[in-house]
């Protein structure tokens, strides 16, 4: 295993590299390097076959969406209504989920791979214009992608009659301006239309049928598209040989927090376990300072938390869901025994309350309310009733049982993912998720906070006795 100083955060390993193969080169983002390492070979190969064949290959490889929902890309492309034109590709590079940053690396380190992936998707699914939406705060990624696009246009890989063929598509670089919720695909579309990035309700606004400008629109994550050049070059068999049947290929996972070697890893999908990732020498090598693992967030800030009880679960949605959480965007945040759990929950609740777009009442009003109550609790001015109130407000956002992990010591059995919600998108529930996890798994830490407040004045102030 090795780290590349030019790619801070990334940790290579002795594993298959589907999307990070060029990260070892300091000039990995240039067209020269790209062309020297099979660059645009997949595009040429794709164009030499009918578009429908390429679509079939992607479908056959079950390339799961890497943005969070995990929906297979090939199936998604097939959901566009027949004979409705134009259709668009919108690339979701608005990566903002706490804990996550694989897409930024892919855009900074290998922009041409992403561009080639976009071209393959447009060709296969008949998408006539592509908008590549990069998160506003990622200045370097914007520079690298802009440079790469300028190079690719000049070389005839993008634009009119690509490689002299009848395939023509523009890729337009678009960049945001700071709003987490825009990572949600319908909000991304609103934002791309120049509007406030407020999510639309699905249905009727399933982008594949009714997306950008009301037209069929495919929204794919950066990592998802970055998989395509390798897949087309090496074929479906080679792709599905990595990982499991339901989760083939690799995944980019960021592990941060209290581990010895935090980093972004390209891991084998479906088989690598959380224990491997957090404790394996190939990966993070255990908890810092020899401390104990207390809890971890398995799939980005929105995900319900796990404790050591869940370490042996693999990176596989069909197992993580029933266990009470989700894989989400491929981000693990690790908390050791020194962690102040209510305070940690508050940082996440604050994040989602702050990032609420304000559209749905439960999220707009409930998120802030949760934050205010929790702040009180964390500051030691809360009451017992506040703990119950947190749950009551949370229930107004997510009615019914909220998912959580099993816990042997507490005698809890798992409530499977997903939850019910009274909001359009996941921002509102995400404000509640950390509170629910923390209160369910570490209630005593909250009780200690609120009890203290109630007992101190009684002994400190001269009482009637």
């Amino acid at each position, binding site marked *: 295993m090795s780290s590349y100083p030019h790619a801070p955060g990334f940790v290579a390993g002795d594993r298959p590299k589907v999307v990070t193969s060029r990260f070892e080169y300091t000039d990995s983002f240039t067209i020269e390097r790209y062309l020297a390492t099979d660059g645009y070979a997949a595009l040429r190969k794709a164009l030499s076959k009918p578009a429908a064949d390429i679509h079939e290959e992607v479908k056959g490889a079950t390339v799961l969406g890497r943005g969070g929902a995990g929906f297979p890309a090939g199936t998604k492309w097939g959901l566009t209504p027949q004979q409705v034109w134009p259709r668009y590709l919108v690339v979701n590079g608005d990566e903002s989920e706490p804990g996550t940053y694989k897409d930024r690396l892919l855009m900074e380190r290998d922009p041409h791979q992403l561009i080639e992936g976009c071209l393959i998707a447009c060709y296969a699914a008949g998408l006539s214009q592509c908008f590549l939406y990069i998160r506003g705060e990622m200045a370097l990624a914007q520079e690298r992608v802009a440079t790469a696009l300028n190079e690719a246009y000049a070389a005839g890989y993008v634009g009119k009659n690509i490689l002299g063929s009848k395939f023509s598509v523009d890729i337009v670089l678009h960049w945001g301006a700071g709003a987490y919720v825009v990572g949600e695909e319908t909000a991304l579309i609103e934002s791309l239309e120049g509007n406030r990035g407020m999510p639309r309700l699905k249905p009727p606004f399933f982008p594949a049928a009714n997306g950008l400008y009301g037209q069929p629109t495919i929204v794919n994550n950066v990592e998802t598209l970055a998989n395509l050049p390798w897949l087309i070059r090496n074929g479906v068999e080679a792709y599905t040989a990595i990982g499991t049947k339901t989760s083939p290929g690799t995944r980019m996972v960021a592990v941060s927090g209290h581990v010895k070697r935090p980093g972004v890893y390209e891991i084998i999908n479906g088989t690598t376990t959380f224990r491997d990732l957090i404790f394996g020498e190939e990966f993070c090598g255990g908890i810092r300072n020899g401390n104990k693992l207390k809890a971890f967030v398995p799939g980005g800030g929105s995900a319900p938390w796990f404790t050591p009880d869940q370490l042996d679960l693999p990176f596989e949605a069909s197992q993580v869901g029933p266990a009470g959480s989700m894989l989400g965007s491929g981000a693990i945040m690790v908390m050791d025994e020194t962690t102040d759990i209510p305070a940690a929950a508050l940082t996440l609740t604050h994040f989602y309350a702050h*990032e609420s777009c304000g559209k749905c009442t439960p999220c707009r009003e409930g998120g802030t309310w949760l934050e205010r109550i929790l702040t009180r609790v964390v500051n030691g001015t809360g009451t017992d009733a506040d703990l119950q109130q947190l749950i009551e407000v949370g229930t107004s956002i997510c009615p019914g049982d909220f998912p959580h992990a099993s816990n042997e010591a507490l005698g809890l059995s798992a409530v499977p993912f997903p939850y019910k919600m009274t909001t359009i998108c996941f921002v509102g529930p995400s404000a509640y998720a950390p509170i629910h996890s923390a209160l369910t798994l570490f209630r005593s830490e909250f009780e200690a906070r609120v009890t203290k407040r109630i007992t101190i004045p009684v002994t400190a102030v001269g009482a009637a006795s």
Partner: protein
Amino acid sequence: MTTVDPANTTPVDPNAVSLTINGKVVSARKGDLIIAAADKSNDFIPRFCYHPRMAPAGMCRQCLVEVEGPRGPMMVVSCMTPVAEGQVVRTETEQVKKAQEGVLELLLANHPLDCPVCDKGGECPLQDQAFSHGPGESRYVEEKRHYEKPIPISDNVFLDRERCILCDRCTRFADEVAGDALISFTSRGNNTQVMTFPDEPFSSYFSGNTVQICPVGALTAKPYRFKARPWDLDQTESTCTTCSVGCRTVVQSSRDELVRYQGVDIDPVNWGWLCDRGRFNFESVNSDERLTTPFVKDAQGNHVATTWSGALDAAARMLRTALAVSPESVAIIGGARGTNEDAFAWAQLADAMGVNQRDAQLADGLPAEVFALPQASIDEAVTANTIILLSPDLKEELPVLYLRVRDVAQKRKSKVVEITSRPTGLTPSAWKTVLVEPGKIASTISAGLDPVILKQIASGSVSVIVGRMNLAESAESTVLALAEILHVAPQAKVLPVLRRGNVRGAITAGLTPQHGAADTAEILALAAAGKIDTLVLLGADPLSDVPDADLARRGLAGARNIISVDTFMTPSTSQADVVLPAAAFGEKNGTTTNLEGRMSNVAQKITPAGTSRPDWMIAAELAIALGKDLGVNSVEEVTAKLVKTVAQFAPAANTKALRHDGVLMNHPTPLTLSRTTLAVSDRNSYDYRIVSFRKLYDAAVGTAKSPSLAQLATGATVVVHPLDLARIGVELGANVQVISAKSTVVLPVTTSEDVLRGTAWLPFNQPGNDGREIFGVHADIVDVRIEKLA
């Protein structure tokens, strides 16, 4: 689409959907939303953001219900979920109740409980639904959001952001419906608020609708603020007669004073919307300046208050004297302001007197023959594949019709082709706008329109919305252009858009030149020549409304006697020898006819000002004084006689229909227009051809006497293309001379990029000097020079 099964003749509707709501089988139509289907089955689902006339937003989350799904009940928002065959919906389960209570608690979290001093209190959806669907208590102990309260966002609308529950109704209305996206959500999340752009007011002609649809007291209208409590209001349904669209309204009063009009949703016309002029001009009815007693002129020419019998005697004496000479020495101008009954009674009186010179139009309309073309209703006009606009700016003159046309254009249901001398409020929504210099519209069409447009016209149904687009251009010019359009679109149906409230009803009831007698322009010319002995003005103010100011002035001066029936002492009324105070809108019952020929009722809500009386009653009493009793003693008797006498009014016998949607009048057998060419000379030594038009807020009495509206009239400027400023050699805003063959006026000059080169704009009937001195009513076009002041 309904098909008939020949086997059992029961119509089978392929769009019918059957679902179950709370155990009841409910039928709906494909595409209906669950919330609408539930409304029909009387299963009320609480809601705030949902409004049936706007695209659903799904944002308040109040209307959550359970729908049975493959994996058990799912929680969905009923305002965005369409019905489906066999769908099972539950709106009252424990889960639903808990979710709805939860949302309501959250909505109330930051809502100030200042209901006792809130205009909405008592008719507030938030209040009502907190009562019916709320949790009954709040556990929110945090500090509520604070904003400055309330802030004016326009001259007539105030915004209290603390009360706002961010339902997106006002902002959606402004953007989607009105096309005036001057308010928007700003900021984000818990700090989201509705705001205008800094220092740029929400100056929409439709702003009052946002107040009406606001589900809380966040938006309030200045004319109504703190005027009444909802439970003290008394109300009746009526039809607005401010313009000829005929919007359905509710007229509300408190202590015998009008305090508010609210739009009523009827499918064929206004969908619940009103323009601000129609909404707020109740102030003029309450005005202290209303005529409350009759006047006659004394020997010194001063108006002296008198009794009705005195005034009627005086009027009858004048008429008798004139009739003794000849019925041709009597003329009647006006009548479009009143009800069908008012117009009919006066027409009956005119018949009895043998007076043929009568005209409800003021030389600013179109010949009545446009009503004899194949007619389109508003619905038919806006559902045609192609809508051709040969009309004034609908946004300025017939605002709610503008909303209806804009709706189909924005939703790309119809293509709008606009042929105009000046871009209008619909230009941004139009598929094609053909800009043509005044006087050349007919010839431009006959020379051949863009083939793309012709192809579109030929591809399906066509409607032509026709009106007087330019008051500095003759009516004939418009009629000829219409004839050319009907030549290329023979299938077209016509929606004539004459502007005055009941002009169509008045004309149809008989207030139009009979047997080729003189129209208003000719009457005024006859009067100027001393040939009119007694001129009757029925709510008409020729000095303000006839495009040729000089002609109007000479006409009124030349008439020996003038009898004016009016609500205010207008410039023309002040010249009258007998002034008879008329009851205004809201003070009388009857029926009115809108521009498409829809007849509906107008209703009395308050006692007429002073001793004022409805026009029909004045006609009836004058008739008695003249010994020509009309035989009518009540407005119902006038309606009955009208329905029986004038075939086109026959459908008005359906009095039930009159009291809500209204009913369309019968149309006469269509005639065809002949195509001739208009000989319009070139501009020669003149530099600019005038385009003159009305704006929503002008010097009309209903506006001028409503303080909230009067302030909105801008006054006139002559508007030229920016490149012409240098040519004139003046700075923006400077006074310039506008010189026509007839006269010269001095006005400030302003610019617009939209001005077609070679033309200049001159708004009509603005307060102050508006330049109509330069118009000649008999000229086809008005050409001018614009020069620096000497």
